């Protein structure tokens, strides 16, 4: 193990880690927005949109991210749509994650019991108040474990984006191995980087989940 190599290349890993986080952040945001929109279309059963969303969810969940971004990055320019690598990465994560988020939110909304809604009706809440005070707070806490699992899933999926030359952690590791042949050292830095990013995130998300849990029935 060449320790000086570790020290020397550390800044490049920090930089790459920030790229992973940045792409992950925008990708997750895109997924959250897509998921919310889809979920409300499904929940309120908006006629034609509902069918489109259902097809989208199945396409997104049953195809790999690698093919999705290859199609965006290599396929689309052929029909005149040229997107940057970063744009493809964020759109790809949004396309993939949107369906996972939509399912998580929908699960939460559907888990809010009919009796809770009738209770709300019986004290005269209108539709908006019902959503704001009764349905959403409960749905959010019910779907939180699934949503946070999706956060971590999507952040890990960013490693696939190395294939379209996004200079994230794996991509940088690949180039360094190519340059210096310090395989073990580079792989160690790579693994540790993911630990440093994902472990604290999963701890924070777990904490938020527990804080929200008082909405659950029973214990």
């Amino acid at each position: 193990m060449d320790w000086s190599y570790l020290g020397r290349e550390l800044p490049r890993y920090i930089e790459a880690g920030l790229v992973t986080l940045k792409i992950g952040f925008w990708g997750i945001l895109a997924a959250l927005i897509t998921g919310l929109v889809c979920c409300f279309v499904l929940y309120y059963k908006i006629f034609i949109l509902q069918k489109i969303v259902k097809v989208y969810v199945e396409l997104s969940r049953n195809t790999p991210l690698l093919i999705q971004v290859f199609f965006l990055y290599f396929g689309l320019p052929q029909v005149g749509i040229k997107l940057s690598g970063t744009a493809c990465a964020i759109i790809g994560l949004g396309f993939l994650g949107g369906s996972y988020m939509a399912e998580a939110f929908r699960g939460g909304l559907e888990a809010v019991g009919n009796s809770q809604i009738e209770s709300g009706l019986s004290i005269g809440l209108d539709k908006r108040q019902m959503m704001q005070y009764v349905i959403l707070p409960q749905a959010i806490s019910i779907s939180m474990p699934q949503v946070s699992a999706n956060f971590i899933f999507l952040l890990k999926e960013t490693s696939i984006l190395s294939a379209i030359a996004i200079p994230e952690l794996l991509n940088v590791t690949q180039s360094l191995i190519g340059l210096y042949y310090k395989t073990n050292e580079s792989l160690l830095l790579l693994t540790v980087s993911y630990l440093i990013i994902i472990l604290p995130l999963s701890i924070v998300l777990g904490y938020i989940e527990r804080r929200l849990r008082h909405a659950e029935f029973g214990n």
Partner: protein
Amino acid sequence: MQNSGINVIFNNIGILLDGLGNTLLIAVTSLFISFFTGFGFGLLRMSKNRIVKLLTYIYLEAFRIIPIMVWLFSFFFFIPRTLGIDISGEVAAIVVFTMWGTAEMGDIVRGALESLSKGQIESGLSIGLSKLQLFLYIQFPQAIKRIVPGAISLGTRMIKTTSLVVLIGVIDVIARGKQVIERTKEAFWIYGFLFLLFFLMCYPLSIMARKLERKWES
């Protein structure tokens, strides 16, 4: 116009499907082995021994935290260098997918066994069944209804994840696709076709998992 537009798919279908064989070989082999090793791992995870508990927990979390892409990449580069044996991308892929599959399958098995009600187990014990009999006649038949849908979902995840093997040099369906693109420049149609192909492999499995889950829910 032989090799342009949508025709490129039909003209090269033989090559493309040849790569698919490799993709499926990796997914099916890994899944098959994982099914058995996962069962063992699931039982280990339910052990009351604290060291076994800790080790199995760390093993599972390692796959939950480190991306599969990183595992694949590490094995492909790390093993040949450290152990001095040359392994092909296929072997590296099967090893990694099996390790990952064991962890996930184990979690499915554990979840299914733990979801069984205490009453079932107690009534089994009360009629004098041994632990093995209890497992064979009561726990296993009930748990399998939760395990199978989970295992099928894991199968779709594994098929999707096999797409990554192209990145460690395995000649799979995507690698074949890339070769065709190099020749014909028809990236739009080839990637469109691959997108559809993966969908056609995964969608029926997803539907099946969902149906079984619903059927066996009660």
